[in-house]
């Protein structure tokens, strides 16, 4: 029997064995969009999370037609196995995974450990950019059952599980952004009242690979399994990593990624905000 993990996660040896498989497309997605240009796994195409995956004007996804045009240009077909990987412990690869699911791509997987594990293992990387013939990609959706919006988050305080996956210093309000970024941000510090702080990093080992299903189940033991769950971070990429764990690896039923996340919530007028180590009251 194929486990959920085997359907959605592949290791480096699997990728190495499928480098010449025409139905497997490797896609690199990074926060540092220059990383791909310095070297990548042979045959991998690049998606720029900012240029390719965001609407150029509004703060939102590209629409369905835009997603179809993007994947067609990259030569990806709807029945291809898409294997995503990237830096930052697969944050943006997980974001792209969730995004591909919003638009209905059936067979998407993550390379466990992403670019870091591949590099730490000293596996080969190349500078050659592959040429793939353009395809005619047809998307479905968008599937908003896996995406949360701000009003839903406010209404979920005290009724659903809310998971803040940022670092403890961001949750309490001591930092406004991950510590590799400057801290001058326009939004208020803090967290959504009642949100549990389960940093995304607790789900991964130092080399970026996901922990075992048993360890992950224990990690999220504080969630009420009878309730729906919303995960958020600062801009929705780390929470996509947690969404992947909860929805794809552990199989929780109703899990949504709030990609507006703290940069949106912390800028809203009139909503409750909690400071400090405690989740806070509804």
């Amino acid at each position, binding site marked *: 029997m194929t486990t959920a993990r085997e359907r959605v996660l592949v290791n480096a040896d699997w990728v190495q064995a499928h480098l010449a498989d025409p139905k497997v497309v490797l896609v690199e997605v990074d926060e540092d969009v220059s990383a791909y240009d310095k070297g990548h796994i042979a045959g991998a195409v690049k998606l720029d999370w900012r240029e390719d995956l965001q609407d150029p004007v509004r703060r939102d996804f590209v629409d369905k037609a835009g997603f179809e045009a993007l994947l067609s240009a990259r030569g990806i077909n709807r029945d291809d196995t898409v294997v995503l990987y990237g830096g930052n412990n697969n944050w943006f690869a997980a974001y792209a995974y969730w995004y591909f699911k919003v638009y209905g791509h059936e067979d998407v997987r993550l390379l466990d450990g992403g670019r870091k594990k591949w590099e*730490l293992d000293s596996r080969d990387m190349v500078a050659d950019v592959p040429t793939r013939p353009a395809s005619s990609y047809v998307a479905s959706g968008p599937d908003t059952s896996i995406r949360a919006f701000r009003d839903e988050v406010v209404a979920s305080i005290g009724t659903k599980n809310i998971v803040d996956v940022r*670092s403890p*210093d961001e949750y309490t*309000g*001591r*930092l*406004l952004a991950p510590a590799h970024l400057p*801290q001058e941000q326009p939004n208020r510090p803090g967290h959504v009242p009642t949100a549990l702080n389960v940093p995304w990093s607790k789900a991964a080992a130092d080399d970026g690979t996901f922990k075992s299903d048993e360890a992950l189940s224990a990690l999220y033991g504080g969630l009420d399994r009878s309730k729906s769950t919303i995960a958020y971070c600062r801009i929705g990429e780390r929470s996509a990593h947690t969404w992947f764990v909860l929805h794809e690896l552990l199989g929780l039923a109703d899990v949504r990624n709030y990609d507006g996340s703290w940069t949106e919530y912390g800028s809203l007028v009139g909503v409750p905000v909690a400071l400090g180590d405690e989740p806070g009251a509804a």
Partner: protein
Amino acid sequence: MSAISTASPAAAVVNGGCGAPAGAALDGVDLSRAAVVTGVVRRDGAPLAGAYVRLLDSSGEFTAEVITGDEGAFRFFAAPGSWTLRTLAPRAATVDRDVRSALGTVAEVTIDL
């Protein structure tokens, strides 16, 4: 638990030199409001690019991670306090180094693998 201060002390913007390594330059950063942790990773005395440096808080929890640039350099904007720098690199054992950061200062650390 206090929030990040919104007071605005006199700006003390530091300009990195033209040769500042990518990923570690402090151009345009208001250091009076930042607690910067920066440094270099070396192997056999030479700067090592492509090492992974993670910033762990006083409870050991991950806060951030960066990859060293061509000059082996890394940089974090931390909150004031005690931190551990954990460095991973190909063909090297993991190295942990403790560091203290304070507002308005740049803590510099050299990590030898």
